[in-house]
């Protein structure tokens, strides 16, 4: 089983940096087995296609626009994902949606797809997460770790 944990978002745009920050946090806090790859995908679209090849389970982490209270956690799965992204709930819906569609056309679509994210408060230019999103990061981290453990991934705390 091959797992890709893909963080999306622009590191320069406050809450939009969530995906990339989470990847860095995960890398710092845990040791992952070889079959799990962590990737800060930035705001790339089709360029991420090679990384989807051979992936069985894909976990995307992204700042979301769900019309909810800032800081609220969301988990989307399978068919909800492209549909949710088609409804412009994330700031990257074009890139991710196109990416998944092309992956499907090529026969590389991972069999399982889960998105974990937090409702964004700010996507202005800035290097810090908003307090609301920042306050939910620990919970998101735990949720991501549990999701991976549910997939049978054995994680070790970093020394």
């Amino acid at each position, binding site marked *: 089983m091959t797992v890709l944990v893909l963080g999306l978002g*622009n*590191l*320069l*745009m406050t809450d*939009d940096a969530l995906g990339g920050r989470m990847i860095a946090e995960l890398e710092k806090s845990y040791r992952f087995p070889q079959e799990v790859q962590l990737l*800060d*995908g*930035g*705001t*790339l*679209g*089709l*360029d*991420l*296609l*090679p990384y989807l*090849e051979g992936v069985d389970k894909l976990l995307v982490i992204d700042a979301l626009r769900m019309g909810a209270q800032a800081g609220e956690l969301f988990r989307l799965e399978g068919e909800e994902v*492209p549909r949710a992204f088609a409804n*412009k709930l994330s*700031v990257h*819906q*074009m*890139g991710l*949606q*196109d990416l*998944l*569609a*092309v992956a*499907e*056309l*090529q026969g590389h679509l991972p069999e399982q797809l889960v998105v974990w994210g937090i409702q964004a408060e700010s*996507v202005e*230019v*800035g*290097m810090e997460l908003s307090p609301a999103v920042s306050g939910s990061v620990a919970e998101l981290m735990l949720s991501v770790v549990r999701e991976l453990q549910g997939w049978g991934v054995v994680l070790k705390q970093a020394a």
Partner: protein
Amino acid sequence: MAKKIVVDPITRIEGHLRIEAQVEGGKITNAWSSSTAFRGIETILKGRDPRDAHHFTQRFCGVCTTVHSLASIRAVEDALQIQIPDNARLIRNLIMAVQNIQDHVIHFYHLHALDWVDVVSALSADPKKTASLAQSISDWPLSSANYFQGIQQRVKAFVGTGRLGPFANAYWGHSAYKLPAEANLMGVAHYLEALEWQKDIIRIHAILGSKNPHPQTFLVGGMSMPVDPDSQNAINADKIALIGKLLKKARTFVEQVYIPDLLAVASFYKDWAAIGAGVGNYLSYGDFPMDNGGGTDNLYFPRGIIMGKDLANLMPLDEAKISEYVTHSWYSYSDGDDKGKHPYLGETNHNYTGPQPPYEYLDTDNKYSWVKAPRYMDQPMEVGPLARVLVAYASGNTDAKGAVDFVLKQLGIGPAALFSTLGRTAARGIDCLMLAQKSELWLQQLADNMGRGVLEVHNSEKWDPATWPKEAQGFGYHEAPRGGLGHWIRIENGAIKNYQAVVPSTWNAGPRDPRGQLGPYEAALIDTPIADERQPLEILRTIHSFDPCLACAVHLLDGQGSEIIRVRAL
């Protein structure tokens, strides 16, 4: 009676570009180009260490992860008068070339071809005839009837799921599609092959860049990845051999697939050689230094300016003559919005005066875009592969002359045809071909240096801020895939005092200036025929021919205009 149509947003992947066009008698009579999302990212650089700037600027662009790194480190090197070692020049040339080659192929097949190739029509093509067509234009081996039949079945199955995915949002069956079904099927097959191809090509960035995406090898003064034949962790003979293989693969695909496809498609759309000229002024900063002297007079793509389509009068470029206007942009300048500002003195103070969303139209008499209007000697300039190739052609560069003359001859058209939508699309292919053919030389030079024991990749003489003057300023140039990119930095007491980036899409997508002169997109749309106002495919053709990418000019979607493509005919 004039009608106004709106296309918003216009890009297939990233960015946020809106076009408003007035149509009368089946032709566009006026046009406005706007970006409707703010991005004033330069402000976060103020006060930071100039040596760190490239880590931030790398994330300016959502798609090209090398271009803003390069422009940034060059700006700092220019300010501090740092000369980079020859190996750093060669590695940079290779990274830049690969970015351009990959980006051009992806643009052609995945963003632009669908303006010319009708995917739905491909489903009814005869695979045997497709094979004959493919074999008649190229030696590319993937050209059997069985192969095309397989592709056709794959696409049929995909379309059958009801999710068109990347093929949604186009105007299938539009009367402006002219290709026979077989050419459409060939185009679709190569669309898929290009996706496979790019995966390999981009590995070069992982090898030279230590990491991809977002390579981490850039450094003020050179590069950080060592060149060392005796180290597994450096650029060594094995890695050079692997890069050589990948470059050959890149070149073969460009020569045997991209260029033949480009010529085949273009031969059905020669009327577009008379549409979409635009401002007729071209600016190229030039790029790909042929020596490491640090000067700009020995660049593979030379630096220069062409005014009024006059190829006989190539002029030198002086960056001091660049200024940015905000008369029609949602910014205000401290000393009035009608005066231009050189980027060293640039200001990014936002001042939104547009309508509150949702709205029908922008107030195009006043401010109507988040993009500023850059001008050179107060003239609007087009940047991009066409500008690059025209400047090279006008300078007498033999490779550019050879490639341009070959394409013109194949299509049976004259040099005047270059000033057009078709010319822009063809020039991108020429640019790609020239780089695909040249980059093996840079790799060879790198191998030769290594063979002679020349291993230096970084000049650290001025790494320590104690060696810097109290004040310095520099201009970092780069010819990114989409065109001329400039970064301007002012350094004071070791920290960034001011930073401005003028990106290619700012030049091309910018609005009018105080004199009312149209920007390149706007000018290029004038007189474009529109067969069906509800399906303005022709607008997409011309705008896509520029390879618009407001991912770097602006990135975020606002709450309003986030539909995929909205067209309103009123």
